[in-house]
Structure formats: C-alpha cells, structure tokens
C-alpha cells in the first residue's frame, strides 16, 4: 500500500476511535454517577493551576494587539477604534484559541503522559480487573473539568486582554478613553462574547478527549509515552485551529442578530 493511503487510513481509524471514545464518555456521564472528588481535583488542576499561563497570554495579546491596531488606525485617524478591534478579536477568536492552545500544552500533554504511563505500567489493566471502566474513572472527570474550565479561563483571558489594551491605548498612546470605550461597547455585541465561550467549551472537550485518547492508546515503553504526549499536543493544536475556522463560519451565521 502506498504510504499516503496508509496515513489516510490510520487517520480515519483514529477519527473513528475518537468518536467512539466521545460516545462512551457521554454514555458514562448519563448512566454512571461520575466521581465528584476526582472531578473537583481535575477542575483544580486544570482551572486553578492554569491561571498564570492564561493571564499572561491574555494580557500580552491584548497589549500587543492594542499597540499594533493603534499604529495602523492612527494613520487614518481612527484611534478610538483601537479598543473595539481588540475586544472583538479577543472575544471571538484570540481569547478562545490562544487559551485553548496554552491549556493544550499544559493539560493535554499532562493527560497523555499520565494515562500513557498508566497504560505502559499496566495500571489501566489493573483498573479493568477491578471492575472499573477506564472511561468512567479517568476520562469523564477530565472531560467534565476541561469543558467547564475552558470557558471560564477564556472569559478571564478576554477580560484581562481588554483591560491591558485599555492601559496601553489610553495610558501609553493617549487615545481618548471615553470614545474608545463607547466604540468598544458599540462593536462588541453579546453574540461576539457568546461565540467565544461556545468555542472555548468545544475546545475544552477536544483537549481532554484527544489527550486521553493518546494516553489510553499509548505504545509500550518510555518512548511510547513521549510520543503519545507530543502527538497529543500537535493533534489538539492543529484541530483547534482548523475547527476554529469552521466554527467561526457556522456560529456567525447561527448567532447573527
């Protein structure tokens, strides 16, 4: 078989297995009471421990965006549009995408490494002999935690991004604050924010499903774990970027006022 057909084939197989994992996870959430303690621990690890990463990402993205937008807008005397541009792009695109990419590097990698190590040291098999489904015990708490944490983290990144863009625009570039804020409110509709939060929720699911999938299907040995971790981060990042485009097309139509 030529190489490209084989690659295409294994891609399809992975997609199928990922879908089955999602279905199994939903079935598990509906039928089996998820463990509250594990869920809270994951929420803590994913939500609380990602704070610094998310705050720095949000703040500096907002700042650089404000500076660059100001440089361009200033040429056409549209200085007061700066904050509006920052707000709209943070809310609908940069907030969810950058937050998800940062969390993917931290949490998606950790999931793949942890579950992968459990697999190669037979801990997953041990779980199965102790009458526990790995999806119930490992995947569901992680999935629920990322789905809840990502919109919150994204909201936080957006907020801090706008605040820091205000500091740069008004404080550093001397834009008229009142007009800039008026424009910001005029152009950022509730739909824009909503679009970002829906995206974040979907990215949250994506991070833990792919992270767990790569871990659970990890190959033997330390090399297998390393490879699973890398593959998880790459696959999550790529799919976030691709899915984001289609979500933008889809959501802007659905949410259009």
């Amino acid at each position: 078989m030529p190489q490209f057909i084989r690659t295409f084939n294994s891609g399809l197989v992975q997609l199928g297995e990922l879908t089955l994992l999602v279905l199994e996870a939903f079935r598990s959430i509906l039928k089996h009471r998820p463990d509250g303690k594990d869920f809270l621990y994951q929420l803590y690890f994913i939500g609380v421990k990602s704070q610094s990463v998310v705050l720095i990402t949000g703040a500096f993205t907002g700042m650089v965006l404000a500076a660059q937008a100001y440089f361009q807008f200033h040429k056409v005397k549209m200085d007061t549009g700066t904050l509006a541009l920052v707000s709209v792009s943070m809310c609908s695109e940069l907030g969810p995408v950058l937050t998800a990419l940062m969390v993917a590097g931290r949490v998606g990698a950790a999931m793949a490494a942890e579950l992968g190590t459990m697999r190669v040291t037979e801990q997953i098999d041990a779980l199965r002999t102790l009458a526990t489904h790995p999806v119930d015990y490992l995947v569901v708490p992680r999935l629920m935690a990322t789905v809840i944490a990502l919109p919150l983290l994204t909201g936080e990144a957006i907020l801090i991004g706008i605040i820091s863009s205000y500091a740069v625009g008004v404080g550093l570039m001397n834009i008229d604050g009142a007009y800039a804020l008026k424009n910001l409110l005029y152009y950022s509709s509730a739909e824009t924010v909503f679009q970002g939060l829906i995206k974040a929720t979907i990215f949250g699911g994506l991070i833990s499903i792919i992270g767990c999938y790569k871990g659970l299907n990890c190959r033997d040995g330390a090399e297998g774990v390393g490879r699973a971790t890398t593959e998880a981060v790459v696959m999550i990042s790529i799919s976030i970027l691709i899915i984001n485009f289609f979500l933008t097309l889809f959501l802007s139509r659905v949410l259009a006022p």
Partner: protein
Amino acid sequence: MIEVTNLKKSFEEHPVLEGVSFSIAKGDSVVIIGRSGCGKSVLIKHMIGLLMPDSGEVRIGGELLTGKNERELLRIRRRFGMLFQSAALFDSLTVEDNVAFLLRREGKMTQGQIQKRVDEVLEVVELPRTQKKKPSELSGGMKKRVGLARAIVYKPEILLYDEPTTGLDPVVSDSIDQLIVRVSEQLHVTSVVVTHDIRSMRRVGKRIIMLAQGLVYVEGSPEEIFSSRDPLVHRFVNGISDPKENSF
C-alpha cells in the same frame, strides 16, 4: 469454572498461543509453568478478558467471555482478583486507597467497615502500618504484597496470580505461598498461579500445566511433573539449560 478452548493469539504475525485448551474445576489450584516469554502472562490476561483471542474461547462458569464488550466484562471481572507480574499499583494513590479501591467504588460498605477490612488484609500480607505510604516508597516485594492485598480484599471467587513470588526473599515467598494455599482452602476460591519458582510450584499446585511452543505441553499432578522423563519438562523443573542453547 474456567474453560479455555483452542485459544490462539498472535501479536503482529508473531504467534504466542497456538491452540491452548484446558479446564479448571471450581476450588482447584493450578500452577502454570513455562519458559520466560512463552505466553503465560498473555494466557492469564485472556482468562480475565484483558486480551481477546484471535480465535478460540474462554468460559467462566459456563459464561462466554470472548466477544463481550467492556461493560459486560466488568461485571464478570468482579468475580476475579488478579495480581499482576508488575504489581501495577496505582501510583497516585496511597497503599490504603489502592487496597480499598474496588470497595470504595462499589460503595456497599461504610467507610469504617472498609477501613477495618483494609487493615485486616494488610495484616494478612504482613504489611501493617503502610497504609499512608505511596507505592514509590515501597520495595518491589512490598508492592507485590500490596497488589496481593488489593486482589483478595473483596473476596473474589477466582484468583489469578502472575508470578506472586518472583523477586521476593525465600522467607516472604514461603509466607505468600502459604497465604495462597490458605485463601484457596478457606474461601474455596479457584486459583491460577503462574510461576517460575520450583518451590512454590510444589507448595501451591494441586495440578500443573506446562506451556511450550504455544501449546499445553504437559498437564499433571506435581509428582507426575517432577518425575517426568520428558527432556523439556525434566530440564525445566531441574533448572538445566539446553546444551544447544549455550553454543557461544
């Protein structure tokens, strides 16, 4: 209790089991022996449905394991306890949480009852006062014994032991062997022990199955096996290597 029929399994063209058949009666203790890499661990994982055969079948108390989905298997696996060759303790949990794992998840006993039961079992495997330790703080032999405690704590009907005494000192090995015998006699469990250890073979096995070349090579009582004139069996039980393998 356990019926294995014409079990075949290969990993990527490399055949490991090539038609293994045997059956084990309720309450029996069977020892499975064979050279390293001959597929003992693979066989024992088929008996509990962790691996699925390429062909052939496994029945537990008449119920077919082969081809069942994971959720159905979970219910059947509740009847089993298994000690892994690598112990396979959950390294993020303490010893106590490892041992109590299934009892806590089932939620049929109160916390107090579970605690008491865990303490008893840890006493039985001679590991008192290790409750709060993490697996990484234990020696290899101690891990094995925690794995054993985790397998027997919920009183399963069938116990599978993958090399329970490998890597333990002779004194602890003896006490583990006696524990296996005691558990199987007192609780009337069916036990299957994979081992390389000739002494434990004599101590725990009522019947011995030897695997070789992907098949059940011989099967018999310990006396029959130890007095066997078959060169392969004779060399194995007496620990003599084949002169042809020492050619370098």
